[in-house]
């Protein structure tokens, strides 16, 4: 089988039939924005696109503006979605309500396995997008061959490359590169079963895991892992934990391994490159690179190329090689903003802020200390000159343009940004404003 829904298996034959049916319902177009929230629907959509020579676009943000931008990138694009209540800028194709396999009486006369479509390794499978400094998302090509090569390498290193079929539960969306690889492609490339649900609360995560057959893996992030361990919910047996999108604290990794009585492996990668390295944080701080991948370290980041990487990419991280295929991760380059695994840049956020009518001058910045929440998730702050706007209207305008996690906390209205003689904004001056908000002029 290929998937589980609420613990019930979905057979490959159903999957192929669902994909075939979806292909028949596609209008004339080459690009499909796949916004399905159900992981099985997403995968059927991906397979249908692959089988019919179409390219999937994976939205990197839920901000309404993203859909406009994808439409500008690919004017013929339609949006495949399984939710009715979103008002979209693109023509919508709603995922069919009932799977063909759901009611055996409705099944086609030929119960035989539909043919497995052959897809060439050189076919362009998808575009993924990152936030560039110009405010327009940058597209990155994902060709099928390199995607599958990367997954087979990753599966091997994670212990998922053998003959045994694993059940894979993920808390990350299939549109995010990590989720795309580890909860969708991993199943397709290596014959594992994906889980349709994307549980959110700790109690739901535990319940969804307990319903799956062994061996089963949980693909998650530090934010969810922390919530799961702190919730008091009884951890079900799991055979592998995987974490990514942000560095995991050593103590948290150790606690996770103890509580779940299993290995925890961490993955390092990026939207542009996909996953490129892993480590077991309780055993070593150093990361092991995928075969063929090389890193070139520079002042403003690290160039990654080779192996499955389709174009050389500057990773916004400060790395240190400890061997030919191993490295330490020291920290992010200062422009990078990573909040609970979603990535943006100060340049991109500033572009969005300053494009809002009524904003005369504005700047996002990293506040000196985390906001103090238990999750340890530091937010990004902003300082703005906008005499005619109040916080509610400004935030509403920002909400249209950027993902909700990047909305500034705190948001400070000032008469003038603390620029120096050369027009630059010293970080210390901004952080001082955040620390002493009463010194800022009220809106």
């Amino acid at each position, binding site marked *: 089988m290929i998937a589980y829904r609420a613990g019930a298996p979905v057979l490959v034959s159903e999957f192929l039939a669902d994909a075939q049916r979806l292909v028949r319902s596609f209008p004339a177009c080459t690009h499909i924005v796949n916004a399905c929230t159900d992981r099985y629907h997403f995968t059927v959509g991906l397979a249908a696109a692959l089988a019919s020579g179409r390219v999937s676009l994976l939205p990197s943000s839920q901000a309404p503006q993203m859909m406009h931008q994808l439409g500008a990138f690919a004017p013929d694009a339609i949006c495949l979605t399984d939710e009715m209540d979103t008002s979209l800028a693109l023509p919508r194709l709603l995922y069919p309500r009932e799977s063909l396999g759901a009611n055996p009486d409705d099944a086609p006369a030929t119960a035989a396995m539909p043919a497995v479509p052959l897809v060439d390794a050189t076919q362009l499978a998808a575009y993924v997008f990152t936030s560039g400094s110009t405010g327009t998302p940058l597209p990155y090509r994902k060709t099928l061959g390199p995607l599958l090569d990367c997954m087979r390498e990753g599966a091997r290193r994670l212990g998922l490359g053998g003959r045994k079929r694993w059940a894979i539960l993920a808390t990350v969306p299939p549109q995010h590169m990590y989720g795309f690889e580890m909860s969708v492609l991993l199943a397709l490339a290596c014959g594992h079963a994906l889980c349709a649900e994307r*549980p*959110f*609360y*700790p*109690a*739901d995560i535990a*319940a969804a895991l307990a319903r799956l057959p062994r061996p089963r893996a949980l693909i998650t992030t530090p*934010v*969810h892992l922390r*919530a799961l361990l*702190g*919730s*008091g*919910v009884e951890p079900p047996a799991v055979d592998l934990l995987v974490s990514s999108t942000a560095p995991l604290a050593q103590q948290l990794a150790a606690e996770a391994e103890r509580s779940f009585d299993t290995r925890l492996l961490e993955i390092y990668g990026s939207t542009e490159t996909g996953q490129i390295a892993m480590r077991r944080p309780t055993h070593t701080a150093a990361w092991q690179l995928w075969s063929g991948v090389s890193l070139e370290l520079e002042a403003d980041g690290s160039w990654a190329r080779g192996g499955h990487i389709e174009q050389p990419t500057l990773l916004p991280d400060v790395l240190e090689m400890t061997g030919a295929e191993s490295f330490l991760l020291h920290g992010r380059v200062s422009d990078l903003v990573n*909040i*609970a695994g979603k990535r943006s840049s100060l340049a991109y956020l500033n572009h969005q802020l300053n494009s809002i009518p009524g904003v005369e001058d504005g700047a996002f910045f990293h506040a000196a200390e985390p*906001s*103090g*929440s*238990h*999750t340890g*998730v530091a937010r990004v702050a902003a300082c703005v000159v906008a005499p005619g706007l109040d916080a509610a209207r400004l*935030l*509403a305008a920002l*909400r249209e343009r950027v993902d*909700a*996690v990047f*909305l500034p*906390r*705190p948001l400070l209205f000032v008469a003038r940004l603390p620029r120096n003689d050369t027009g630059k904004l010293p970080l210390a001056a901004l952080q001082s404003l955040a620390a002493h908000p009463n010194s800022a002029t009220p809106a």
Partner: protein
Amino acid sequence: MSDQAASLRHPPATANADADALSAEIAGLIVQALNLEVAPTQIAPDQPLYGEGLGLDSIDILEIALVVSKKYGVQLRADSGENTRIFGSLRQLVDYIIAHRTK
């Protein structure tokens, strides 16, 4: 205590006062846990918590779920859209906690 939910629908004076006190307590928890810049009394009972309104996002929801589970022994679950209803407003969150609390 399992009658609390029933008594909320046909409230005698004391059950109302209890719910109000709990609502103030939970508002305080939210503000403290998320380090918000509003005072607990500024969170109107029917103001949306998620998205527009108080402006919380999914990271905040997870954090609130954590403090609520620790303090009231309630494990939040998302059953077919109840996710939105629990966090639709402070009042809805309070009602959910009253109905499910074990501490």
